[in-house]
Structures are given as C-alpha cells and as structure tokens.
C-alpha cells in the first residue's frame, strides 16, 4: 500500500550514473518547492552515492535544518565551520566553488540563528556572507544579507555603506522577472529607510515569482528580520508578501440513494458550487486540503483548480472502496470528475489503506489527518488555515461529517460556513424532489462490521539489550521495572490497555498528546534510574515507537482481556525496532494527530486569555524502512521542547 503519492514536477534520474551536480539540482528543486522532507530523503541517497561531495553535504544539512532538526544541523555545521574555514579564507579568489561554499554556509548559520537565536550563529553568518560578497561583489543578495546582519550587530554606518555599495554596484536595474536582483535592491532601500523605492523594487521582485509560495514566504521572513534590526516595517511592504491562504474543506456528499430526506440533491449542485467559489474568492484561497467524495468535496476541488490553486487530498480508506462508497453512487460522470481531480491533485494521501467496512470513524480519522496536515503546511508558510464547511445547519454532529469536523475545529474566527438549508430554500421544491432515480445496483451497501473500530494512539517499547542480561540480573531487572511503574503511577492518564511480555510494552490511549506525554515520561523516568541500585550492568533504555490510527476493538478470546487488532497495530509495532535507544519515534499519522490536538488546546487557552506554550517538537528523520519488511514510511523523532517539564 502506498501511503502517499505526490505529483512529480519533473522526471529525475536517480541511478548510479547520476552525478553530484544532478543530485544537487534535484535537492535544490525540492527545497525551493518547500518539499523539505523529500529533499532530505534525496540528499541522503545522494550522499550514499557521493559521500565526499561538499555541495551535497551542504544541501543535506540545509534539508535537515528545514525539516526542523535544528540541533543536529547546528552540530554538523559547527564541525564543518572549524574544518573548512581556514582553507577557504586563504583560497585564491579564482578558486572554483569557494565563494559558493562560504555563501551557503553563511545562509545556513543564518537559518540556525533565526530558529534558535544563538549570537555565535549570527556572527558566523555575517562574517561568512561578507567574505563571500567581498570575493564576488556581483552577489548582491549575499551582500545585502550581510548588510542587514551588520545592522543587527549594531554597526549602522557600515550597514548603510554596504547597502549603497550594492545599489550603485550594478550598471543598471535588474531585468524583469529577476527576483533576486530586485529583491536585493528592495532590501537595500529598506536599509536606507526609503519606503517608496523599496516598495517599487519589491513589486518587481514578486512579479517574477508568481505563485511560488516558498519564495514568497522566505522573502517575507527576510523582510520581517528587518523589523528586528530596529528599522521601520512598513505595512504595505508586508502586504505584498502576504502568505498564501490555506483552506481546509469539510463537505457534505450528494444524497445517497435511500437517504430518506433531502439534504444535497443534484439540483443543488450549481448553487453549492457558486457559494464555494464566492467563499474561496473572499478568502483568496491558494492551497486546499480536502477529501474527494461526490458533491461538495469535488466541487471544492474543482473550484480550487479552476482558480489555479493547489489541491491536496486525504482519502479515508482504500481507493477502490472509496470510489464504491463515496463517488460511484452519484453516477458515472462523478467518477470521471473524481479521477480528473485525483490526477490534478498536488498530493494524495490515504488515512488508512484498509477497507471501509461501514465504519464512519474512518471519516473522522481522515478529517484529523487533514487538519494536522493543513496546520503543518500553514505553519511552514507562516500562515493559519481556514475551515470552509458546506453543512446542513439542522443536522447533528455524527462522526466524520462536516458537523463533526466543525466541532473539532479550534478557531471560530477561521471558520466559514455554507448552509445547505439556506441554499435549498432558494431552489423550487419541485426541483429538489426531482432528482433522477439512480440505478439500484449503485445503492450503498455497507459490509457488516464484525468488530467495532476506534481511533487509538499506540506505543510499543522494547528494552535495549534485554537478551544480553544474565540470569542473575533478572531479579534486579524486575525490581527496576517495579520502581519504574511506581514512579510513573499517577503521572499519566489511565491507559486503555497495557500489556507486557518480559522486556516489551504495548500501551494504548485515546489521544496523541496523552500518549506523547506517556512515552516521554517513560523514557525520562527510565533514564533517571541508576543501574547500580539494582545490580544491573547498564542503564535501562527503551526503544519507543508511536503510531495512531483506527483499530478494531474486541475482547481477546484467549485472555479474556480487551484488545486491539488490525493493520495499524502492526504498523505501530514496526516503528519501535527502528527507534534509537532512549528516543521516541513516531509515524506521520501520530504527528498529524498530535498537531491537531495541540492546536485545539492552544486556541482554547488563548480564547480565555491563557498561555499555551507548545510542548512537543518533532524532527523528520526521513522515509525509513520499517521492521520485518513492512515497507517504508515517514518517521519523526518526538521530543519535549526545551524548558518544558512533564
């Protein structure tokens, strides 16, 4: 089962014959497109082919940094800085590659400083960028960044001198469409506090970018950095660089045969399409996240594509099952529209590769994944998503419906509604009831559910080195586990399930935040236990893997205890073996749920004037092969944010 697929922008060669320059081009392409996780994966593969290549090492570090692994990236950069700086400073001006390396290293230290605020990173960034600019004064972008950092460091006179040098260095204005040329000029004029000229240059720069969001976002971050230097930040300047609006969609499908009441009949298609288009216009929507059922989901996707926007799909279960249950009943033309949207989508994800089996909980799970993905994307774009829901206001919140989605949406201010009931009032009753009869063979048939399903967060943990313990260590090992349990008691929510078989633990909780806390508490408490107190040769360390997904619940026929079953339990079990000792690794689905839950808590706190500092952070580790040939999946390293206590 392929969990996710992305539309390729280009065909890239990735065989043994691919040279370092081609690999670098691929990584840069993905980084420029904001696909930092894929860039990181590509960089790892590239370095396997060309381990000593400096440009690839730089791009690997840059990709790592973009995925959020700040500390690892800083460590790699620091070592490299000490290793190569003496040689590069002493290198003759015409030595190829040196100016590039200095500039790229400077940019990476700058990115580190922006994320962590370490003054040493700032100083190194400024020195490296200035060295690069001095070696090649045509690199205006490098020069203007060095000038900004010089201003930040307090040397305003030298910063202004550098800005003037950049503005007067070129023979003429940059050509139309030259983003870097115009943007460098805009920044230089900002340093000189000339608002009008800065605004004009910035307009020229943005005109050359079009809808390339990562460039706009990076440019905005760079302009915002000026605010931190004490220079005035003009609102009209930031307006030009507004991040794209991300819209998450919660829809109501066309009435299935045998519904018994009129909610969304075919006669309502045009009014609903019109209402969606108007809302998207008002929001200036550029990026959409949605499912793709017949009816309002597909109308939303089509409207987004029609306005040149980007569509990202999350389907709640296996493709053919989805078509059978959520598309085909409305007629062949809806299936054709579905396939067109699928082809045109920027990304297609499946919440689970399992079948539907009549479990509506899968729709809720898919909604949670959608919400988490939209929030992660928005955070990357310095934006916040809106929820647009096409909804019958008269209906209650059954799980997985638009009502249910609204109930779990954290921010009323970013909620927009299209009321189906209101639209129905605008259509003659005769038209509403004149829906063409659909063939009986297309009637919805849900398979009888054998077991109930629920969304659960799951933990698998395993003691590192257990098999190497000698028999005489077992009493101490048991005493240590008892002490671990005592110390954990009362410090975490009641577990739905806790099983152990010697050195392994399987725990189940209903929420991702609660499970993240439990997992990190387990690791922290285990690390605090002194092995000498238990006559053990080494400290107790767990490998911990986390996953969340819909599972089947039943009483175990052998033990009589409640248990969970299914593909997602297996997937959770396959993450733990790839985890590093003492660390907590998590699946993409777990991280998406965690993100959605944390955002909901943050909004609830803010609405009552309280503070809700984010508690967790996660570094992307790449698409890793899971244990027992379970295929490859994106895996994240979950950590507690600095300063946060459990």
């Amino acid at each position, binding site marked *: 089962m392929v969990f996710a697929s992305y539309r390729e922008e280009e065909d890239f060669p990735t065989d043994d014959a691919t040279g370092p320059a081609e690999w670098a081009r691929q990584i840069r392409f993905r980084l420029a497109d904001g696909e930092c996780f894929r860039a990181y994966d590509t960089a790892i593969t590239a370095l396997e082919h060309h381990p000593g290549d400096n440009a690839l090492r730089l791009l690997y570090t840059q990709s790592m940094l973009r995925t959020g692994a700040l500390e690892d990236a800083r460590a790699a950069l620091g070592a490299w800085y000490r290793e190569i700086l003496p040689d590069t400073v002493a290198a003759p001006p015409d030595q190829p590659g040196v100016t590039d390396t200095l500039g790229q290293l400077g940019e990476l230290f700058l990115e580190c400083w922006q994320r962590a605020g370490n003054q040493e990173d700032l100083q190194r960034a400024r020195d490296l960028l200035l060295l690069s600019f001095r070696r090649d004064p045509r690199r205006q972008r490098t020069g203007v960044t060095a000038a900004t950092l010089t201003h930040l460091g307090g040397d305003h006179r030298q910063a202004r001198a550098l800005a003037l040098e950049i503005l007067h260095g070129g023979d003429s204005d940059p050509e139309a469409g030259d983003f870097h040329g115009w943007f460098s000029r805009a920044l230089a004029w900002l340093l000189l506090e000339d608002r009008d000229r800065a605004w004009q240059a910035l307009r020229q720069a943005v005109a050359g970018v079009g809808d390339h969001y990562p460039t706009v976002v990076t440019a905005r971050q760079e302009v915002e950095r000026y605010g931190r230097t004490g220079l005035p930040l003009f609102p009209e300047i930031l307006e030009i660089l507004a991040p794209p609006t991300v819209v998450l969609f919660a829809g109501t499908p066309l009435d299935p045969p045998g519904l018994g009441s009129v909610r969304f009949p075919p006669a309502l298609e045009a009014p609903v399409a019109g209402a969606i288009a108007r809302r998207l216009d008002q929001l200036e929507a550029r990026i959409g996240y949605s499912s793709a059922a017949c009816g309002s989901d597909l109308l939303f996707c089509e409207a987004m594509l029609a306005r040149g926007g980007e569509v990202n799909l999350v389907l709640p279960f296996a493709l053919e099952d989805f078509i059978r249950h959520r598309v085909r009943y409305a007629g062949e033309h809806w299936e054709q529209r579905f396939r067109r949207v699928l082809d045109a989508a920027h990304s297609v994800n499946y919440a689970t590769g399992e079948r539907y089996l009549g479990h509506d909980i899968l729709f809720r799970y898919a909604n949670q994944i959608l919400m988490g993905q939209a929030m992660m994307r928005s955070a990357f774009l310095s934006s916040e998503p809106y929820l647009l829901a096409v909804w019958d*206001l008269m209906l*209650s*919140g059954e799980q997985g419906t638009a*009502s249910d989605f609204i109930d779990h949406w954290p921010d009323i*201010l970013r*909620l927009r509604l299209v009321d189906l009931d209101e639209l129905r009032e605008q259509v003659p009753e005769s038209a509403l009831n004149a829906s063409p009869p659909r063939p009986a063979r297309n009637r919805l048939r849900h398979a009888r559910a054998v077991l109930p399903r629920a969304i659960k967060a799951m933990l698998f943990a395993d003691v590192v080195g257990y098999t190497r313990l000698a028999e005489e260590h077992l009493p101490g090992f048991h005493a240590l586990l008892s002490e671990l349990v005592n110390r954990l008691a009362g410090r975490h929510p009641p577990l739905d399930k806790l099983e152990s078989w010697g050195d392994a633990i399987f725990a189940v909780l209903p929420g991702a935040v609660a499970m993240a806390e439990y997992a990190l508490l387990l690791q922290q408490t285990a690390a605090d236990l002194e092995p000498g107190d238990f006559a053990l040769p080494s400290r107790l360390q767990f490998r911990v893997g986390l996953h969340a997904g819909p599972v089947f619940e039943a009483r175990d026929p052998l033990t009589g205890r409640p248990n969970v079953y299914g593909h997602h339990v297996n997937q959770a079990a396959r993450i733990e073996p790839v985890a590093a000792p003492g660390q907590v690794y998590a699946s993409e689905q777990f991280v998406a749920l965690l993100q959605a839950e944390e955002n*909901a808590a943050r909004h*609830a706190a803010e609405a*009552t*004037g309280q503070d809700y500092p984010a508690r967790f952070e996660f570094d992307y580790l790449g698409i890793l092969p899971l244990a027992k040939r379970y295929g490859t999946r994106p895996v994240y390293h979950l950590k507690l944010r600095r300063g946060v206590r459990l």
Partner: protein
Amino acid sequence: MDIHQQHQDQTIVLSPQGRLDSTTAGELEKHLLGLLDQGQTQLVVDFIQLDYISSAGLRVLLMAAKRVKATRGSLALCCMKDSIREVFEMSGFDRIFAIYDSREDATSAMARAT
C-alpha cells in the same frame, strides 16, 4: 456541564456554565433538542457564566437557531463576556444571532415578538 434553566413567561432561559467546547457541547445540544421536541419556541441562552465557546458550541447554537426558526420561534443570546462577543463580531456570527447585553433585554424582545 451545569446548565441552569429558568422560565420567564413564555421564554426559557438557559445558563450554561464554564466551557462550551467539544466535550460539553453535546450536553447543551441534548438539552436544547429536548426543549424543542417539547414544543418550546422561545429560547434565550444566557452567557453570563460561560468562559469559553468553541466551534462545537457555536455549531450547537446555530443548529438550535435554525430549528427554532423552522417553527417560527426565536432564539436569543445575552450577557456575553467581551472576549466572546469579540469572537462573534470578528467572525460575523453576530449577524446570525440576536445578541443582547442583558437577560432583561433578551426576554423583553422575546415577549414583544410573540
């Protein structure tokens, strides 16, 4: 969640307490639907003891307003804290509900409407 209920002439005033979020909205929904099923058509929801309302709470109020309207009745909201009022105004939902500063204003408006 605690929901106080009072009769004032033909109007029923509900005062939910604390937080109206995805955990508690179901209780208010059940309470409101129960009243509507009994044929009650004049309802006021008093926000005086409400500290927070989430999208789930808003949805329940929107649903109740729709259902009351379908029976030619009315639903009003009153006594919102500034922070909640601001959310309604900024999101535009203040245009959907009749919102009053005091319970007296809300019940008087109800009485005039009948």
